[in-house]
């Protein structure tokens, strides 16, 4: 009996591993075809991609550095998606958090470096929370579809920040649109010769907290219950309305912190390409989907995806393949991840087997 259980556990672990790996491999195969169409060798391209970002100490440190905001945005997405709330506004929440953390970092003087950093991060989180509260309140009290609202408010936020960066908060000494560079006291120092900063460890601490919240706390249980069946959750005396706001506040705080961290450890000023393309919030979406909305999965997925991103810069150096190929591969991964190839409910492979053998998989098991 026990061996059966263990077998089943391994089977389900293998299944979830496969369901993350297969989309990635499929996307890389399609990406490889595109690369070979350009007349380049896909294998050497992929080898450069991986070896430069994972197999050298310097490269790996850079990968971890770039993974820090992805871990946070990944968690920000996961905490809402688990509850079946679709917060697509992580990108906007990250931008406003980063922007105002930068403004605080540039204007604060006379405080000790530690205090400055704490204030900057708090400002970032606060802004993220405030922006996330708009869709949260609309959803909880007026039943407005949060997905549509967050998708549209992203565009509004990009425009507002663009306006602020070109007007009120513009750094007039600079030749292009940017806010002033933050004070030295607000910057996270690099550790040793690497690009790694303490911000990575802050994101690890947040990861541990979120691991506890999502897997071991009452709130985590409530999030899952709301995601599975909000009517039941309400009937079981959960205040779904308040929980939705709580969940969105957590998501907004994580996104805002990610933005603040990006500002204080990587960018140091707000430019119009602050979060890159397609943006750290959207990267977080992929990370969360790849990690199956599970904190540990997200941590691994964030490092993996960060390796792709840092490696893609190297592709430009060593081959003629434009690094935009990574965006193509990323979107293909998301597309393939949408389908649960190995889910127990809609298992395509089982149904294929059924069609071929003419027998139902479950009945075979029962006979045994």
């Amino acid at each position, binding site marked *: 009996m026990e061996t059966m259980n263990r077998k089943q556990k391994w089977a389900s672990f293998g299944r979830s591993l496969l369901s993350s790996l297969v989309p990635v491999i499929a996307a890389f195969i399609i990406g490889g075809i*595109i690369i070979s169409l*350009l007349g380049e060798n896909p294998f050497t391209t992929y080898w450069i991609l991986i070896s430069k970002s994972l197999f050298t100490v310097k490269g790996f440190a850079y990968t971890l550095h770039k993974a820090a905001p992805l871990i946070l945005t990944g968690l920000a997405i996961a905490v809402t998606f688990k509850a*079946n*709330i*679709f917060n*697509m506004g992580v990108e906007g929440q990250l931008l406003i958090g980063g922007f105002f953390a930068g403004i605080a970092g540039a204007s604060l003087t006379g405080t000790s470096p530690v205090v400055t950093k704490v204030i900057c991060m708090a400002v970032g989180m606060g802004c993220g929370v405030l922006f996330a509260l*708009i869709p949260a309140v*609309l959803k*909880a009290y*007026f*039943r*407005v*579809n949060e*997905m*549509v*609202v967050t*998708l*549209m*408010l*992203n*565009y*509004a936020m990009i*425009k*507002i920040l*663009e*306006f602020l960066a*070109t*007007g009120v908060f513009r750094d007039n000494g600079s030749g292009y649109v940017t806010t002033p560079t933050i004070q030295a006291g607000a910057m996270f120092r690099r550790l040793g010769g690497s690009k790694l900063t303490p911000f990575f460890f802050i994101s690890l601490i947040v990861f541990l907290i979120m691991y506890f919240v999502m897997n071991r706390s009452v709130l985590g249980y409530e999030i899952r219950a*709301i995601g599975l069946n*909000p*009517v039941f959750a*309400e*009937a079981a005396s959960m205040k*779904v*309305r308040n929980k939705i706001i709580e969940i969105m506040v957590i998501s907004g705080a994580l996104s805002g912190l990610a933005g603040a961290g990006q500002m204080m450890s990587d960018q140091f000023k707000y430019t119009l390409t602050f979060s890159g*393309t*397609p943006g750290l919030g*959207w990267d977080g*979406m992929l990370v969360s*989907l790849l990690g199956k909305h599970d904190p540990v999965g997200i941590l691994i997925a964030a490092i993996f995806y960060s390796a792709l991103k840092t490696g893609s810069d190297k592709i430009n150096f060593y081959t003629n393949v*434009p690094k*935009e*190929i990574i*965006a*193509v591969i*990323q*979107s*293909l991964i*998301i*597309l*393939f*991840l*949408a*389908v*649960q190839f190995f889910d127990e409910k*809609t298992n*395509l492979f089982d149904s294929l087997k059924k069609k071929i053998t003419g027998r139902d998989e479950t009945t075979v098991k029962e006979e045994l």
Partner: protein
Amino acid sequence: MDLLQSILYDMVYHSTPIILCVIGGVFAYKANVLNIALEGMMLCGAFIVMLVDFLTGNLALAVGASILSVLLLGLIFSFFGITCKGNVIVVGLGINMLVSAIAGFVLKVMNSSNILINSLKVSDFKINIPVIENIPILGSLLSGHPLITYLSFLGIFLMWVLMYKTKFGIYVRVVGENEDAARSLGLKVSFYRYMAILIGAFCCALAGINLSLERLGLFTNDMTAGRGFVAIAAIYCGHGDPLVSAVYAIIFGLARSLSINLSIFAGPAAGLFDVIPYVLMTIVLTVVSIYRYKNIKIRGFRINE
């Protein structure tokens, strides 16, 4: 007077792509498939028509290729979302990102930041209706627009007829309202969902062609700028009725037109006017939602209704 005329003209001008997305998207909404890939489909239409025209110089071929490519995108969406039962929100998001990524990749390979065709004269696409063009206000409202603009307004009524006066429309709505009932009647549920998505894809292709080819003769990446999402908001507000949803699309067009025409007087705050349409749409969505659920007084909270 000139200002009023240009506001009205721009209203029609900016409403067009959103109306097209809306009247295409309502079928998916009614068939209970949330299609957030409208944005990506529109971008794909805009991109392919300019790319093919740039490479071949054949306008008819370009338009055909554009429509076909978006229909293909619709098939991909349907296959992943309906046949494989994937999460349609994630599928839609994946398609939106895929189109943007491919367009960015191709532009990079072409070593250019946009596709501009010099031989293309946008003014050639404009159709001036004799007599009417000289009537003051009516002229700017009805005359001087490109072909697809007229098609889009005609399309509102066509889609309304298709939705409410044909068997196809009834079946699509049955599939959306009660899948099991539809199945027990012997309706091919997947077939109607596929068709609903493909109608949306076709309309989005037209919207894209309007956006890049007819209006500007220029493609830049991500030029759709969230119009697909605005269209989804309009569909939500109009509860999937083509006529009502199109009215919300026109409201957005008006907001856009006002923000552009009035920003001249705003001085340094002009940049902020771009925000108005998105914020207005959020407010409209909220008001409609409050109004809709005003009289429902069941205990508790439901997420999906």
